[in-house]
């Protein structure tokens, strides 16, 4: 004999509930359904028909369970929908295009036949499209469900000047393109080599950096990408964002300077090549110092830029409030 309908219905409902609620909801729902079924039987219905009517009125068990625990029945709620849509649109344009162009360029340089160039770059572009859609949505859905606070509530000062774009988007696109190119350059350097000498590919960066130092660099790049997106979502600079930006700059600076100072940044082959082409060790040393200073200046400028922008974002609020306080 099969399990009676009400029992099956209740089981289907409570299995979606947290364990501590299950017994209580089970007992209460059983009593409520029995009451309703009996009321229908009193009006002259068969038990089976009455059960069907009562349970049909209660509706989908999963929906009932969701409303018992206030579980959202949407993937991304109104709080994040617009941010999700903006980021998704931008990335869906940028990332597949970049991949398409890079793969096509790579195959073209490698002298692949036209059919292969088109096929490979289309396939890569498409798969980038699917990946972007999936991961961006996953991140936003997780943020929505875990109640992640962006720490930003809308206020009137955020209204953009009519001619300006969404704040952060001017920075998002170049950042992502730059970081993407950096990743590609890294991969190209290590796998194919930029410099050809005697028909041999010579990597610029030391291959012995793999795995730890290289993974560290990749992690920093990943954090930078995350930061660019976070900045875009929040729409304006703030003190915590400027602080994070500085930390990332310091991380990158330490990475580069440590390896440069230890003489581990560049591959032995490229230094040998430079020496054999007439560069003196002194000249190489000076170039190293200039490079180190350059990295330092760029990092300092990037970090300062963040603070200036966050101060500007903060002071625009203060000046707006001043008329009220002077009265």
């Amino acid at each position, binding site marked *: 004999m099969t399990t009676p309908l009400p029992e099956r219905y209740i089981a289907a409902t409570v299995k979606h509930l947290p364990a501590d609620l299950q017994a209580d*909801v089970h007992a*209460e729902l059983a009593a*409520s359904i029995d*009451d309703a079924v009996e009321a229908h039987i009193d009006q002259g219905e068969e038990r089976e028909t009455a059960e069907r009517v009562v349970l049909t*009125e209660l509706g989908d068990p999963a929906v009932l369970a969701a*409303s018992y625990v206030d579980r959202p029945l949407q993937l991304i709620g109104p709080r994040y929908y617009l941010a999700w849509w903006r980021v998704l649109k931008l990335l869906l344009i940028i990332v597949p295009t970049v991949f398409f162009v890079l793969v096509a360029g790579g195959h073209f340089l490698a002298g692949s036949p036209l059919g292969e160039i088109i096929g490979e770059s289309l396939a890569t572009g498409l798969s980038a499209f699917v990946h972007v859609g999936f991961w961006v949505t996953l991140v936003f859905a997780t943020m929505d469900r875990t109640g992640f606070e962006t720490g930003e509530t809308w206020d009137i000062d955020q209204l953009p000047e009519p001619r300006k774009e969404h704040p952060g988007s001017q920075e998002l696109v170049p950042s992502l393109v730059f970081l993407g190119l950096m990743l590609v350059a890294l991969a190209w350097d290590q796998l194919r080599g930029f410099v050809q000498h005697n028909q041999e590919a010579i990597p610029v960066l030391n291959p012995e950096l793999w795995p730890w130092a290289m993974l560290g660099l990749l992690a920093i790049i990943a954090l930078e990408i995350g930061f660019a997106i976070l900045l875009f979502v929040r729409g304006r600079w703030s003190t915590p964002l400027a602080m994070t930006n500085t930390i990332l700059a310091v991380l990158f600076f330490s990475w580069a300077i440590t390896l440069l100072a230890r003489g581990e940044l560049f591959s032995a082959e490229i230094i040998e090549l430079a020496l054999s082409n007439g560069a003196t060790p002194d000249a190489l040393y000076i170039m190293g110092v200039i490079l180190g200073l350059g990295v330092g200046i760029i990092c300092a400028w990037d970090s300062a830029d963040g603070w200036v922008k966050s101060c500007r974002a903060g002071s625009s609020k203060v000046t707006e409030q001043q008329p009220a306080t002077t009265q």
Partner: protein
Amino acid sequence: MVEEVEPHLQELRRGTVVLACLQLLCTPGYGYGLLEDLQSAGFATEANTLYPLLRRLEKQGHLTSHWDTGESRPRKFYQTSKQGIYLAQAMHSEWQTLSEAIDSLGDDPLTNEEK
């Protein structure tokens, strides 16, 4: 016509069920019994909104509950708490204010149309 009107009516009714529950449950009641009471009092309520609503109000402290195992089948009884009575009073006076505000708008739109 009905399809355009119904969502607006539902919007108006939303919230009144909470008030009705809090007032009816000043004397303890259980799920299905309350559903029938609400319907006979003129509040069209579905079982699948009422049962979760009772639990939510209990969680918020507006209702208290206990299991009554004395009768033929054990039932969970709810009763309006002090906090719930306070909420009911606040909602009731808000309803009255709204009702007066609507009255102050003038005559029934229908009677105006007929003139």
